[in-house]
Structures are given as C-alpha cells and as structure tokens.
C-alpha cells in the first residue's frame, strides 16, 4: 500500500509477452492532486542514499570479507557493478516495467522508458523522481544479494548477463505484482511493507537455484578456505544494519508515524535476532561468534522487512527471535544436509528469513498499528496468512522458473564458470587482473608497460 503509485491503468492486455511490444501510451497524468512535502522529500532522499549505501559499501564488504583473499575484489565487484549496471537498467526500462501502466496485473508498460514522464512533479507527497530513485535502490540491492551464492567461481560475463536479465524478468515483474497498485498480489491484499517477498524471497530462492545450476566450488566442502577478513564483513553488516532504516522506515514513503513504527520494529528485530543467534551458538557450539552475531542481525533485518510498518514493537521481538532460529537452522543444518554450495548463505538468510517474515506478517500485522494493513492471525484474521502464503508461493515460482530459464540461456552464450585453473588462482587475478593485498618486496614486480608506450 505504501508503494501505491498514482498512475491510473488504461491497459489491461493479458499476455505478458506483449510487454516489449507496447509503446508509450498517452502522456502521464497524475490524477491525485497532491503537494510535495519538504519533510517527506528530505527523508526519502536520505532513505534512498541509505539504501544505496547498503549495496556499496555495505553488502560489498559483508560478502567481500567472507571469501578468500584471492576473490575479494571479484566479490566486491558484484555489488559495486550492480550499482552501475542496475543503476542504468532501472532508468532505462526497469522502473517502467515495475511501475509503468499496468498490463494484466503482471507487468508495467514501457511508457517511462528512460524515465520519460518521470519528473519533479508530486507522486504522493514526494517528487516522482524521488519515488523512482528510491525504488531503484531496492532493485540494485536485490540483484547484488544473489551474488553471494556463486562467489569464487562464476565468470564475469555470465554474472553481467544474468544480472540484467534477472532484474528485468524476475525483479521488475515481481515488484509490479506486489507494489504497483494494479499488481495482482497488491490487488489480492498481500502485504509486503519493504520487500520481504520482492527483495528477500526473490533473491534468496534465486540464489538457491543459481548455486545448484552453477555448481559447487572446487573442493567444496572439504577444501574451501575460511573467510579472509571478518572485520570487513562486520563493517559491512553494520552498514547494512544502519542502511536498513532507510530501507524499512523509508518504505513509509513519508516522514510520519509509520516510518517511526518501521524504524523501531527494524532495530528491535535486528537486535533480538543478533542476541538469539549468538546465544544459540553459545549453547550449541560453546562460543558466541562475531560472524554469528552479524549474521543474526542481518537475518532479523530480513525477517522484519515485510512487516516493519504493519506490526507492533512487541511483535517485532517475536519476529526477530523466530527468524533467527529458522535462519540458524537453514545455515547450519539444511545446507550441510543437502550439500549445496550457497556459498554466503543467501538462501539460508534471505530466502528463509524472507519466507518466514512474509508469513509472520500475516500472523502479527495489525490494523491498529497501521490503518493501511489488515489484521493478522493473532488478531482473529487467519485469511491474511493465506494471502501472505499466496504471495510467498508466487515469489518462489517466479524466482525458480525465472532463474532456471535465464541461467540456461546465459549458458548458451557464455560459460557460467571460470576454468578450474582460474578458480584455483583466484578470480581477482584471472578476471580482473588485480590483486587485493599486495605485499611484494621491492624488486618482485616491475612496470612492464604503460598506456603511453
């Protein structure tokens, strides 16, 4: 509801393949007469910056610290490159597919290609461009999140192709389903405050499919090296945590009471999830770990995302706790049991946390907290849980089918993996010609060539 966008729908064409054939329709008309609020705009500009910060440096460092020092640049590059790649894709067609005029509840048309018709005029109480850029920051981080599943082995051309296609064919339609006022899940009444389904289920489930198709790292699980720099990872996790206030409280699309609710529930769920994870390790493994606390916090942030502005603060305690327990099982038990190499636990944290968060929203959401929300299960409305389940299943279906098809198409164009030799020597040198940490003594290297000579 908070993603409500004031474009009326003229197009109801059922075949979603026709989307690419649809030309720009009549000029943009903003039928809601509204004024731009300086306070709301200031907050949303800030929130957009915070969400962009989550991808780089936040997620970049979070992931970068967890891989070998031979692959840290390649891993940073995934997030950093998404900032560039999806930053352009979103402007060119991503935004329009997600929030252009509706086609059959499935996807938007291309009337806003290259942000045509998106300007400083009001959309709700903020400029349309601010809304579009805020949404773009979500599109960017969602693609970057997936990269954690195929680090240390994917080829760079495959990564680039996959990212553009996935954002276009999975993210943009799903954002339309859930957040466009004409999207079929929005119409159904599925609640997703800040992206539990759109961002976390979609990236987490796609990550699971992608790591199965791309395959395990050489020598996995016995010979994989441990994280090369947890301090980088912890800095990244902390930036994610702070940035998440932009993500969740910003999703109110106003500097108002709902933003305050989302802020409070977000921090509370993150904190309790960090505690839960650390204590689980303490009890089950003997020691609370730094990486465990950081992972717990991220899991809690994921879990609260879909309900952040719909649930009470006490409910966020329950959501943070339960999300941490489920994700702990996903990361520590499921992955080992089934032997898939979801290298940085994208499915374990985002897939499982997003799934549980979406369902928990149906349990804990409250119309008393937010008049735009329905009551959930504990307030006597079990139907909401059913709507949430439909949203979850739809997210799974699109992510599984989309990722499967896209990677099989990419495979026809370029190899998905680097060669075994490149994998062993490290992606940084093999794909990017750089080394992250050079400790060469004088005389061990020399300048062979510069551009000028």
């Amino acid at each position, binding site marked *: 509801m908070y993603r409500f966008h004031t474009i009326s729908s003229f197009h109801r064409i059922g075949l979603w393949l026709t989307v690419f054939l649809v030309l720009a329709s009549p000029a943009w008309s903003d039928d809601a007469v509204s004024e731009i609020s300086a306070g709301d705009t200031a907050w949303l500009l800030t929130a957009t910056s915070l969400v962009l910060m989550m991808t780089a440096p936040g997620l970049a460092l979070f992931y970068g610290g967890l891989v070998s020092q031979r692959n840290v640049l390649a891993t940073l590059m995934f997030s950093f490159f998404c900032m560039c790649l999806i930053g352009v894709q979103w402007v060119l067609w991503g935004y329009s597919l997600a929030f252009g005029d509706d086609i059959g509840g499935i996807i938007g048309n291309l009337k806003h290609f290259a942000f045509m018709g998106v300007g400083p005029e009001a959309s709700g109480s903020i400029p349309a461009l601010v809304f579009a850029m805020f949404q773009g920051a979500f599109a960017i981080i969602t693609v970057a999140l997936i990269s954690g599943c195929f680090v240390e082995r994917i080829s760079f051309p495959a990564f680039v192709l996959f990212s553009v296609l996935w954002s276009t064919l999975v993210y943009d339609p799903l954002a339309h389903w859930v957040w466009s006022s004409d999207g079929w899940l929005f119409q159904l009444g599925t609640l997703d405050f800040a992206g539990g389904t759109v961002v976390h289920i979609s990236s987490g489930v796609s990550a699971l499919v992608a790591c199965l198709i791309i395959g395990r790292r050489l*020598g996995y699980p016995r*010979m994989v090296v441990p994280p090369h720099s947890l301090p980088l990872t912890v800095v990244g996790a902390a930036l994610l945590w702070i940035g998440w206030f932009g993500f969740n409280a910003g999703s109110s699309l106003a500097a108002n009471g709902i933003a305050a609710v989302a802020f409070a529930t977000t921090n509370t769920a993150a904190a309790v999830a960090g505690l839960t994870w650390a204590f689980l390790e303490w009890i089950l493994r003997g020691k609370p770990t730094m990486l465990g606390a950081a992972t717990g916090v991220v899991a809690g942030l994921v879990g609260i995302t879909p309900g952040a502005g719909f649930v009470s603060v006490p409910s966020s305690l329950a959501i943070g706790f339960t999300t941490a327990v489920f994700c702990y099982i996903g990361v520590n038990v499921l992955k080992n049991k089934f032997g898939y190499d979801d290298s940085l636990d994208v499915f374990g944290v985002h897939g499982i946390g997003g799934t549980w968060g979406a369902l928990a929203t149906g349990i804990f959401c409250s119309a008393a907290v937010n008049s735009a929300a329905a009551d959930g299960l504990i307030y006597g409305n079990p139907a909401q849980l059913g709507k949430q389940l439909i949203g979850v299943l739809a997210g799974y279906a699109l992510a599984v089918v989309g990722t499967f098809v896209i990677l099989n198409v990419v495979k026809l164009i370029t190899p998905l993996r680097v060669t075994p030799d490149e994998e062993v020597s490290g992606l940084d040198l093999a794909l990017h010609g750089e080394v992250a940490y050079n400790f060469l003594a004088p005389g*061990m*290297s*020399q*300048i*062979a*060539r510069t551009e000028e000579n």
Partner: protein
Amino acid sequence: MNKIEAIIRPHKLEDLRAALEEIGITGMTVTEVRGFGRQKGHHELYRGREYSVNFLPKIKVEIAVKADMTEQVIDTIRATVNTGQVGDGKIFVFAMSDAVRIRTGERAEEAL
C-alpha cells in the same frame, strides 16, 4: 634420515597433506614462499599501468623422513602435485645428520 623440501603449487597443499598422511607421514612444516623457475610470472593492471610480477606464490613443504621412506615420499609428492604444466615445482632432498625432539631430548630417528 633425509630432509625433503618440495616447492609446490599453492592449491595442491591440501591434497598433498592428505596423501602424505595416508603413507604414514605424521608431521611437516609449510611456508608460503615466492620464487620463479621456468614458469612465467603474471601481469596485474592498475589504472592502465601493467605490472609484471615475476615471483610467483608457491608453497614450500619440509618433511624429515627415515632414509628408507625417501623414495616413497618423493613418489607420493610427484603423483599428487603433478599437473604436467610448467610451474609444478621441484623436490630437493638433503641428507640429515641429526634430529632432536625438544620436549623429550630424543635423537635421530626416534625424534621423527
């Protein structure tokens, strides 16, 4: 008693450790080293500047063995780390005059 020193490709260490353990080698010393032989170095590129790095990272494995195990260890190392490419490394064998276990004072083969 001999000391065997093997310079190998970094990624072969885990395989080698496992293979040596299987033939009864119970200890070794490992150092990360850099060097060059016939294998060419690599190039790194920073803002249009190409650096050639001629000293490549390798792993040096040192093992002290009883004389009658020397050939078996050499064969195991070769079988494990040989990729058939330039840069597989070298094995050096040194005659060792004595060995001391610091904790107990045991000498020679007793100390291995």
